[in-house]
C-alpha cells in the first residue's frame, strides 16, 4: 500500500557516511542517529525524492535478500525515521 509513497530526507538534517554507517544529525534539536548499512543505503537514496517500491527493489538487489524481507526492513526504517522527522514521507 505504501509502495507508491515518495521518500526524501528532511533538509533540517546533516549526515556523513563513515565505514558504511551514516551518522545523521537533526539540526533542529541536535539529536543524532547512527544508521546500519541498510538504513545508510536507504538514507543516501533518499537524498533525492524516490518511491518506496524503488528503494525496496534496490535494497533487495544490493543486499541479496528476497523482496518481502527487504520491503519489511525498508518500511520499518522509513516509518520510524518519518516519526522522528528525519525523512519526509508523502
Amino acid at each position, binding site marked *: 500500500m505504501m509502495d507508491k509513497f515518495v521518500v526524501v530526507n528532511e533538509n*533540517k538534517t*546533516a549526515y*556523513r557516511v*563513515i*565505514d558504511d*554507517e551514516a*551518522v545523521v*544529525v537533526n*539540526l*533542529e*534539536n*541536535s539529536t*543524532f542517529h*547512527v544508521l546500519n548499512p541498510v538504513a545508510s543505503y536507504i538514507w543516501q537514496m533518499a537524498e533525492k525524492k524516490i518511491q518506496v517500491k524503488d528503494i525496496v527493489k534496490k535494497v533487495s538487489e544490493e543486499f541479496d535478500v528476497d523482496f518481502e524481507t527487504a520491503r519489511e526492513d525498508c518500511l520499518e526504517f522509513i516509518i520510524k525515521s518519518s516519526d522522528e522527522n528525519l525523512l519526509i514521507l508523502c
Partner: protein
Amino acid sequence: MGKVPRVISLSIGGEAVKIRSKDREFIEQTKFRYAEFISSSVRSCAVIDVEIGVSEDFGLPFSQASDGPEVKFDCAKEEWTINWMGLYGRWNIHTKRGWMLSRPGPSGFNSFLRFVFSLNLAAKNGGLIHASSLIKKGQTYIFPGKSGAGKSTVARLSPDAILLSDDISLVKKGRSGFSAYGNPFWGELNVGGENEAAPIKGIYFLVKDTKNYLDILSPAQALRRLLPNVVFFARDRAFSRRLFNFCVDLTADIPAYNLHFVPDSSFWRCLDDG
C-alpha cells in the same frame, strides 16, 4: 563605580578579546581569575562590554530556567542572545561585539565567555568539548566525558602533565591539523589551564574499570561518542551543521579510544605505550 570603563585584554586559544567594564570589583576579579590569559596585545578584535547588576534594573526579561540557557538568534541584527539564571548577554557574530549583564560574581562572565567562544570557534572549524585535556611530551591527550566521568580525576592524577583544562577542551584546526588550547573554563579542580597549545595525539573516552586498557574506536564509533560531549548552546541549523562537520573531521583525523582506567596514575602507562 567609575565613569570611564576599565579594559582588560585576554588571549584565549589564540583569540583576542577585550573586556570593558565600569565595575572596578569585576575588573579586579577578572584580572585575578584570568591572570594566565591576560594579553598586552592591543589588536583585540572582539569586544565585550560588561555590566554588573540585575536584569530588572535594565528592563530586560529574566529567565530562571534551570534546564539550560535560553538562546536565540536575531537574523536581522545578526545577533545571538543568551538569557540564563541572572545572565543576559548579546553577541554579534559579524562585528564581534558583545554586551552582557550579570549578577556580581565570576560565573556569569565565564558562562558568557563560553557562549561567545562556542559561537566563534564553530566558524573556524573549532569547538568546545566537555573534556579534560593535558599535554605530555608535546602532544595533547583529550579525555571527553559528562559530569562524573572522571575528567577532573584524570587531571588530578597527572601532576607532571601540562593542564589545559579539567572540564572544557578548546579545539581548533590549523594548518598542521587539530590542536587543543589551554583555557580558563575549569571544572571541579578549580584551577585554570595553562596558556599553552599542542597537537592532539588522541581522544580517550573515559570508562571507569578495574584494569587499564585501550579499545580503539572506528571513526563512526568515535563520532557517536563525541557528539554528546560537544558544547551546543545554540539550536540553529547553520551553527549545528558547522559543529557537526567539525566533529566529523576531528574523529576522521585523530585516533580515538575507550580508555578503561583505574583511578590512579597507572593509566598513563597504556597511553604512553599506545
